């Protein structure tokens, strides 16, 4: 009779477990080799929540790439920021912009195969417009009321006219989720197994680790080229570099420019840089020395933006003169704020300042939150010193920046990155510079009188012309210091075809294997 003691049992079971584990590992490697149609992206942020309309993730533009893979938006965007149909094929105002009319496409289906209806769209707009549901921008969607469906046409009343409302339909929180499914599974159920009508369906979600998506065969925009897409959430830049360099991922982004330059020279890898809709800028606050126009103008003229971009950012940035970049609506290339250190010194001299007797103030910045943020500010402080500005650097966390900005208590100068992927001047210059806005630090009546009426201007040509005037005025008065347009570095395997998107999207549905 076979007898086994405790030690023998442990040996046998331990050996079996080890063999099985090793076998499974080998199988995984083999299986991986067979998965030809999988795209693996080492993404820099995890998906914190699958409800794209509430909480902080709803207002984080950097999560849009993943959300847009699963959820359709009312309106979609081309890589140059122009708009194209999403779930809406037509949209616009009627009756002197007191009403809206939208047409819902008739070939869209939810991931469970049910059709997307006009009633579904209305439910979404009403849900996100109700502040009780936690949307941070409920006030935008709440500006539309009495929404009614007639077939696939939606009509409604404009409660508060917002010229950029339809652009917002391709922006933050403007994702459409299936009402029947959400009501069936509830918020918690939706977090576990989200559903949309986008090009990919969520197959497996390991919170904080990865999301595996499967191509939606019924997608109205055509089935994506990759059957499977994996977004691995790799938050550390060094780990993302290792992911692409070791071949574990096919594509990654948001890596240090030094690493980008090194990797793009490696065989089998391709580097793509795209100037995106984010800009680096320095807010001026209307306090202390910044009330002196000569000081502000000198602070702007003394900064050599090209040198900062070339030397600190290795050329990956585009110097800008206004808060608008060339891809935004209302961009005016004729507005210039040239680098002129001698002119800056002369202006400071008029106000009684010199290198020996400098004007002093504080400049606030984050350190490591954005690429080279602290180094850029150090360089600017050095440039200012040469003309007679002595700025003391204060490093703070981004949370403190938001708090101080909302309270209008920022230092006379503060570094920030402003994102505006819909490219409308209202969502950049207006909210950044309009005094009553919680995002603005400059607060003077002259500028508010120019910007205020533009929020409700119904004539689009007049509105855009108005913003051009605002930008010129801001540049002349030096109310802000625009620095450079950010550039997104993307590294991918040469077996892929990838094109950059000005809105900073990395959309798997737009990536194809090289034929």
């Amino acid at each position, binding site marked *: 009779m076979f007898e086994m003691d405790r030690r023998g049992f442990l040996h046998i079971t331990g050996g079996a*477990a080890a063999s099985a*584990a*090793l*076998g*499974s*590992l080998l*199988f*995984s*490697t083999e299986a991986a080799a067979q998965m030809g149609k999988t795209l693996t992206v080492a993404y820099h942020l*995890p998906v*914190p*929540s699958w*409800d794209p309309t509430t*909480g*902080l*993730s709803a*207002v984080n533009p950097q999560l849009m790439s993943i959300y847009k893979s699963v959820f359709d938006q009312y309106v979609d965007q081309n890589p140059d920021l122009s708009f194209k149909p999403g779930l809406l094929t037509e949209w616009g105002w009627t009756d002197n912009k007191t009403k809206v009319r939208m047409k819902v496409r008739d070939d869209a289906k939810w991931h469970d195969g049910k059709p997307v209806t006009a009633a579904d769209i209305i439910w979404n707009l009403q849900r996100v417009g109700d*502040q*009780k549901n*936690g949307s*941070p*921008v*409920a*006030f935008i969607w709440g500006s539309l009321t009495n929404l009614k469906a007639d077939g696939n046409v939606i009509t409604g009343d404009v409660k508060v006219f917002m010229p950029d409302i339809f652009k917002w339909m391709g922006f*933050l929180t403007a994702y459409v989720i299936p009402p029947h499914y959400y009501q069936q599974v509830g*918020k*918690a159920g939706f977090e576990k197994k989200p559903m949309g009508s986008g090009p990919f369906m969520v197959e*497996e979600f*390991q*919170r*904080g*680790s*990865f999301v*595996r998506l499967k191509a939606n065969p019924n997608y109205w925009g055509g089935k994506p080229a990759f059957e499977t897409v994996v977004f*691995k*959430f*790799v*938050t*550390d830049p*060094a*780990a993302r570099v*290792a*992911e692409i360099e*070791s071949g*574990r991922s096919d594509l990654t982004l948001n890596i240090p420019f030094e690493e980008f330059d090194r990797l793009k020279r490696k065989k089998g890898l391709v580097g793509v840089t795209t100037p995106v809709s984010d800009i680096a800028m320095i807010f001026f606050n209307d306090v202390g020395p910044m009330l002196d126009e000569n000081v502000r103008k000198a602070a702007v003229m003394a900064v050599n933006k090209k040198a900062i971009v070339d030397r600190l950012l290795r050329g990956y940035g585009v110097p800008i003169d206004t808060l608008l970049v060339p891809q935004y609506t209302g961009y005016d290339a004729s507005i210039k704020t040239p680098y002129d250190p001698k002119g800056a010194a002369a202006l400071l001299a008029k106000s009684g300042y010199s290198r020996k007797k400098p004007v002093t103030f504080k400049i606030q910045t984050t350190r490591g939150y954005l690429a080279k943020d602290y180094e850029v500010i150090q360089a600017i402080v050095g440039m200012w010193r040469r003309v007679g500005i002595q700025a003391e650097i204060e490093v703070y966390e*981004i*949370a*403190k920046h*938001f*708090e101080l*900005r*909302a309270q209008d208590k920022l230092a006379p100068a503060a570094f920030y990155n402003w994102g505006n992927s819909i490219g409308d001047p*209202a*969502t950049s210059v207006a*909210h950044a510079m309009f005094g*009553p*806005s*919680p*995002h603005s630090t400059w607060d003077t009546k002259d500028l508010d009188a120019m910007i205020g009426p533009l*929020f409700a201007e119904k004539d689009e040509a007049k509105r855009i012309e108005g913003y051009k005037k605002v930008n010129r005025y801001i540049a002349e008065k030096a109310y802000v210091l625009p620095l450079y347009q950010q550039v997104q570095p993307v590294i991918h395997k040469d077996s892929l075809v990838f094109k950059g998107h000005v809105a900073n999207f990395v959309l798997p549905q737009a990536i194809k294997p090289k034929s």
Partner: protein
Amino acid sequence: MSLGFLLRRLLLAIPTLVGVAVIVFVLLRIVPGDPIAMLIGPGATPADIQKLRELYGLDRGLLDQFVLYVGDLIQGDFGVSISLRQDVMELVLGRLPITLELCLAAIVIAILIGGTLAVAGVYWRGRWPEAGVDGVSGFILAIPDFLWALLFILFVVIFAFSGLPISGRLSHEIRFDALTNFYLLESLVRLRFDVFGSVLLHMLLPALSLALPLSAIIARVLKSSLNEAMTQDYVLLARVKGFSRIRIVAREALRNALVPTVTLTGVQFTFLVGGTVLVEKIFSYPGIGNMAIDAVINRDLPLIQGLVLTFAVLFIAVNLLVDMSYAVLNPRMRHG
């Protein structure tokens, strides 16, 4: 160790937790950073901002907020995360098993490495391997856990260990509908060895990063205790009996030298959990350490409060376990 002692310790935990809850609540209201300021979209009016404050109960006075917070806590409600709009208790309990498994793996690795180094150092006492052991433990200790993490990532790239994952917790090629978040344990119970292997591989580098500095500390303390034990009479008796040197060190002296090491390991466990904050971030390991960083950056007050309280409960539980382990290791303490 009597039941009365255990009950006394558990009762003492209550004021400790209340103290932690009060301190973290007050501190979070003092430090700069407004969660609502991070949420508000462009174009929000003061009325819109006020509505958001009301939604999260931040429009109330500090005392009101505290009373509400304590009332909810007593009912086991940690509140709703501001940044994630999800139940804090669910979020924390979802991530806690991940960190616990990682820390336990790190402890096991640290004990194995540290124990081996200590025994080897004592076995070859006075000879060159002892100097080697001291040198290695000194070197390991000089490098903090997060730096080990970055070094491992670098090694993976340089030496192209293609099978060694550097991010996440489970291979994306595996489908596993888990019932709990204790994947390691659950996969073993359900005989899913593919999951077990994948989870083990994914935790190898983060666990090693956490374990190495601790292993050096264990090696030093254990070696010192072992050296002291080697001078005791029972060791002399064992020598006289003709026991081999390795048996004397590893079996006779080791058990008596373990108590200080267990104390140290218990204390260091708390530091280990603290170390997960950076290491989990570097390896994108989805535990509570990783979550804590995001919660602090986003000033997610309910989530930070929930995480700190969880850490506190964890520390109390570990200390209790350490006290209980004394009784197992040293019979003289069982009735002390």
